[in-house]
């Protein structure tokens, strides 16, 4: 009797269990799995609009000889290599300043630095664009202070356009990363610092030898998310510079947009470029985890 009922119960619970998760699975299947597979399938096609044909790996081959893709890739890496380190270091320094126990107006300062993160990406991009325009605020202030005698072509010169985009992302995201460091720092046992102080260790040394190693997992986490974020950067490039001048701020995501909506729609090739981002994210994340692994 008992032995006979057991499989019955199990089936009952199995069915019940699957019934509970089925709705979620269905939704995930429809809105996650299906689009991913469909886009992979699409990346083997090329053509204009609905006039597509299967070309196998032709899109991948096209990537290698596409000057615009290569420029977008280079730009994305320039942003990555220049911006992420600046932002991480800045966030660490800010976090440790704001973590000082005798600092006044701590709450106010923390809010002020975190505040950019709650602004809309488009809104702040538009603001940066107007601030850095030829007759914009930045040029007028610099001219007034007699630091420059000719307006700087912030958005119309390839070099300065990159500077503006990097400045904008740094402004927007530093506070976000800082919050993680601040939270982690508050979890560090104060007695470690106390012991170090008694041993006569300087503040800089304490920061480098205690704070940084303790924060390593958090730093790794923020580096990975920032890397992914930079690889997928779209809003800033789209709204501040439109990818120009001369494609100097064209990012991979913006290129995907152009391929789908600005140029003759080639959704297959656009899907291929988006898989490039996926592969890059995977490789870089793996690399970062490998570098920061615990060495036993």
């Amino acid at each position: 009797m008992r032995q006979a009922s057991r499989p019955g119960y199990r089936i009952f619970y199995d069915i019940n269990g699957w019934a509970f998760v089925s709705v979620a699975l269905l939704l995930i299947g429809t809105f996650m799995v299906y689009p991913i597979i469909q886009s992979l399938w699409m990346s083997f096609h090329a053509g204009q609009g609905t006039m597509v044909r299967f070309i196998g790996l032709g899109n991948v081959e096209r990537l290698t000889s596409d000057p615009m893709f290569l420029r977008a890739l280079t730009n994305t890496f320039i942003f990555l290599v220049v911006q992420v380190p600046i932002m991480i270091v800045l966030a660490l320094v800010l976090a440790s300043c704001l973590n000082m126990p005798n600092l006044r107006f701590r709450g106010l300062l923390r809010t002020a630095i975190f505040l950019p993160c709650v602004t809309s990406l488009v809104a702040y991009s538009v603001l940066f664009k107007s601030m850095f325009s030829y007759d914009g605020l930045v040029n007028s202030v610099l001219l007034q202070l007699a630091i420059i005698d000719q307006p700087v072509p912030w958005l119309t010169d390839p070099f300065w356009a990159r500077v503006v985009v990097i400045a904008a992302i740094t402004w927007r995201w530093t506070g976000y990363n800082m919050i993680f460091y601040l939270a982690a720092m508050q979890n560090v046992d104060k007695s470690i610092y106390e012991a170090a102080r008694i041993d006569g260790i300087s503040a800089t040394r304490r920061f480098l030898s205690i704070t940084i190693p303790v924060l390593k997992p958090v730093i790794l986490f923020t580096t990975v998310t920032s890397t992914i974020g930079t690889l997928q950067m779209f809003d800033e490039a789209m709204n501040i510079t439109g990818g120009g001048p001369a494609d100097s701020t064209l990012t991979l995501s913006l290129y995907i947009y152009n391929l789908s909506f600005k140029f003759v729609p080639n959704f297959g090739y656009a899907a291929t470029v988006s898989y490039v981002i996926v592969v890059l994210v995977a490789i870089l994340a793996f690399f970062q985890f490998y570098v920061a692994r615990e060495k036993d």
Partner: protein
Amino acid sequence: MEVGGPGLPPEPGVLVFSMRQALATSKETKEHTMHFAKPTTAHAAASLALASFGLMTAAAVSAKEVTVWAWDPNFNIAIMKDAAARYTAKHPDATFKIVDMSKADLEQKLQTTLASGVTKSLPDIVLVEDYNAQKYLRSFPTSFEPMSGKVDYAGFAKYKVDLMTVNGKVYGLPFDSGVTGMYYRKDLLAKAGFSEKDMENITWDRYIEIGTKVMAVTGKKMLGIDPNDNGLIRVMMQSAGRWYFDKDGKLDIKGNPALKAAMEVQGKLFKSGIVKPVTNWAEYVGAVNKGDVASITTGVWITGAVKSEKSQAGLWAVAPTPSLNVPGAVHASNLGGSSWYVLSGGKEKAMAVDFLNEIFAKDTDFYQSILISRGAVGTLMSSRAGKAYSDADLFFGGAQVWLRFSDWLAKVPSVNYGMFTYEGDAAVSAQLPALNQGVPVDQLLDKIQAQLAAQIK
């Protein structure tokens, strides 16, 4: 990759193009719900109202509603509303739903909907920029309704009809023209010692000479250019009857004297220091309205924006587009312009075709009215015989500017825009910094050719 709990912003920039959104599926879904939020509420409210008044339901069912998508509330939308009012006056059973959205939104929505194959949500009539016409007609064949045979195209400017013809079939209804002219400030030019006669039929080289003198005397720049926008290069190129592609749609970059000359002029313009760099449309127009620049050479549709600065009334004049120093170059060109297209999947396409044909292809009075109210120069050649075209414009010191523009319109060289105008623009833009550094144009043309060849595969 999910980071941050509820309430925390997502990781930097992970916003639009994550993998699962690569095909814009979820983005589009979001946009659709956003865009349709209002109409849906409106429909719900309407059906409630209809349910309570049974009589009205019957009336609503028999009326045919033509839906139109367009951009620019002060120009296309306003003109379409005028046209719709004229049509409904004679056809009381027709109603119109004219939807205003930004140009970029409209193009995205149109492209994704056509690509998805689910055309139920598309309108009956859609406005398409001329540069995009071939792209849509060839990328989504069978989606647009051919109108040859139903509309008499002989009355329209030829270049306009050519760009909407695929395999001998004509698809759209030609609308506004982007015929170009040079608008300049008489007062500033006079200060530098140039009369109106000096500005007629000049070359670009002469234009730069004049501009240099204007800047030396008045301190004002001669023109504004957005380095991200190749409009002026395209204007110059078309004035010599050439384009990025030849008549057969083949790449025409290396050995294209018009493109070479146009790029050389653009390089000289920047080098001479008479250009004010601008970064968007508002600054481009703002430079004119604020009096920062002494001239602007662009499509006739700019007239409204120029005239919007009332304090400058009487100070402006219009002259023919400067010409390039290449054989066959004329003092007329085109920039932009758009046309109306009927979608094959539309419910009311028969009425949509009839409407476009009756108002936009025949009603010359209508063209007088939109010229006066909106400064829209249509491409129906017979409309220039109307009174509004010969009227003097006090803003331009009493000159018959509209007649001049319609003269130039007839002279615009017809070129094959092909499908890849924006790809061509991107390829040229990429070489502009090198151009300003003095790299020989022939080398740049090689690079442009290479990039464009890779892009149009």
